[in-house]
């Protein structure tokens, strides 16, 4: 039983890292820029499809490097979604900064187009991504305790990305500019910060993080045209529950939801656990509509 508890703790942490990885990109875009990107799930799917393509290319032309393809795929996924986010900001988002609700509609439209695009390009069936050999199996801690390697990998990746985002936002010059623009756009412009460029970089980074998340999830789930839809609501829940404009809030929220859900899943049926978790979120949102850790969400 004690062993199971340890493994249960691990599966909670594993869910936490998944939720966190999902929500991080959105937290940047939504939290720092106030933009709702409904196509965020499709950006994840784009990352996942990039991973799939990378695996196909490696299998065909570089079979010797197959073991390392995932690392390349994650980098490619970031680059592709970063670039796509950049274009998206340039042609769509930047015209809508003063109309946040309209951003929501336009990005939803884009998400529909992307979904159908995936279907046209990759076909309706889901595609499988091969797992590299070094991620197969489990780390045998004791006789009874086995920690799945792919879960461990996603966890490590999640940690790495979170750290990178924090360093970027709180320790780099770009981060300084981003925070300045978030706090006072006019003043930032006045002291010589190119606010437009800052917006574009922020949005692109958020998109890129979504791509990384998508790449990582190919290890746990499947990739299909509708994959993004599956992720988007969970993602928004985490961000909303944590409180917008607070990266720490996102982390706390992902942790709370993950632990609540995986614990309840252990003692109840999976379906009931989900319902209870969601109900809990709703009740808390009724009493704290601004989320767990947000200072102000007034208009």
């Amino acid at each position: 039983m004690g062993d199971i508890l340890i493994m249960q703790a691990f599966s909670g942490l594993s869910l936490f890292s998944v939720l966190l990885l999902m929500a991080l990109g959105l937290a940047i875009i939504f939290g720092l820029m106030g933009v709702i990107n409904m196509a965020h799930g499709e950006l994840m799917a784009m990352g996942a499809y990039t991973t799939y393509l990378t695996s196909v290319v490696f299998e065909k032309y570089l079979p010797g490097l197959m073991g390392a393809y995932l690392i390349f795929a994650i980098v490619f996924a970031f680059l592709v979604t970063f670039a796509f986010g950049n274009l998206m900001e340039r042609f769509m988002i930047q015209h809508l900064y003063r109309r946040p609700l309209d951003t929501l509609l336009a990005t939803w439209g884009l998400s529909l187009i992307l979904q159908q695009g995936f279907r046209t390009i990759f076909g309706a069936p889901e595609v499988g991504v091969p797992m590299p050999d070094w991620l197969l199996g489990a780390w045998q801690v004791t006789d009874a305790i086995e920690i799945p390697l792919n879960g461990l990998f996603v966890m490590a990746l999640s940690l790495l990305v979170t750290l990178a985002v924090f360093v970027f936002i709180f320790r780099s010059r770009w981060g300084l500019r981003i925070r300045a623009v978030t706090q006072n756009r006019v003043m930032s412009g006045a002291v010589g910060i190119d606010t437009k460029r800052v917006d574009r970089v922020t949005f692109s980074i958020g998109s890129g993080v979504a791509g990384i998340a998508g790449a990582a999830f190919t290890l746990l789930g499947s990739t299909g045209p509708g994959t993004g839809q599956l992720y988007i609501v969970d993602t928004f829940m985490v961000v909303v529950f944590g409180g917008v404009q607070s990266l720490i809030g996102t982390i706390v929220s992902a942790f709370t939801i993950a632990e609540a859900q995986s614990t309840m899943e252990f003692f109840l049926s999976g379906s009931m656990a989900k319902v209870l978790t969601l109900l809990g979120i709703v009740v808390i949102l009724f009493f704290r509509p601004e989320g767990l850790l947000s200072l102000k969400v007034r208009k």
Partner: protein
Amino acid sequence: MHTPTRRFLSRIAKTGLAAAMALSLAQGAQAAPATAAVNTTGLAVDDASVTVGILHSLSGTIAITESSVVDAEKLAIDEINAAGGVLGRQIKVVVEDGASDWPTFAEKANKLLGSDKAAAVFGCYTSASRKAVLPVFERGKGLLYYPTYYEGLEQSPNIIYTGQEATQQNIAAVEWLIKEKGAKTFYLLGSDYIWPRTTNKIAKKVIERLGGKVVAEEYAPLGHTQFGSIINKIKLRKPDVVLSTIVGGSNVALYKQLKAAGLDGGNKTLMAFAITEEEVRGIGAENVTGVYVPMGYFQTVDNEANRKFVAAFKARYGEDRVIGDTMEAGYIAPYLWKAAVEKAGSFDVEKVAAASAGLELDAPEGMVKLHDSNHHLYKYTRIGQIRADGLMDIVHETGLIEPNPYPEL
């Protein structure tokens, strides 16, 4: 609970094979009967053609599975047309997209019956879509051929069910697990909706009757992708068998995570009720190798009709395509309809439905027979074990099993 009847196997196998085929050739040679005689209810039938509908999701979440069934149904219809059609009439097809949305299914069913006057409709995959169109077919006096293995508990005069109902898929499989594999304890895991719940209800009865034990029965929401806690519970309870009625994309997550946690078909008896050859490709054969699957049909079924079917399907849609149970059940539907129409000598829905009782067909899955009264098929249950190439090794095969949509439990 009824014990499944198997006496039909030997009898049917001996009776003349390909009776329907012979009949159709004979009909093709004769002059087609007059339209007024074969169509008294205003269906879209003229001297040269008859219109039927195909109603599946071509878009949305279930399109993945349903579009393949459409391929199989179209293949059958084209084959029938090439062989002279039905009552001397070429079949015209109107394809409608149910868009994975139940009200849309009802809307399109209305259109097919009301505007297109389809003589028969081949369609629906999920139970929800069938439930949505059922009143439309009963009211509009239409005829629907439904190709999915499903939960049973239904019997409409306007629907012919060509897939297995739950007892057909289920009972033999569980009996086999207990008798042949020596399983004693079972973990029932399903997606949270009616088919898994009904399937498990039946499975539970059988398990208990044979002295086995259900150690847990639990349901995950549709679309669930995080099975960590559930897998821990499985490890804690140490069941001999995990019986999974998880459907759709969740399966990918489930088997990837099971495998990562050290449970796979190689070292644990896993049985999946909702994985066909097609789904194996999405999941990745390496994740489900060794898993057992009970179905009425596998692509690897070895007989003449199936060899022809597989060859024709691949020739038309590509060598790399695979064929699963629902696709075969979709494929035989137009043949069953044709046989019934020709037996009735009429396209009228009531007459066709009445003529369907007792029809036999040499199908790719073997000789099947429509039940005298309940509109379901006598079908075989085969247990396949998933191979590394994604197809199934058939490890067990029953005789024909009588359909029993309303089992007394």
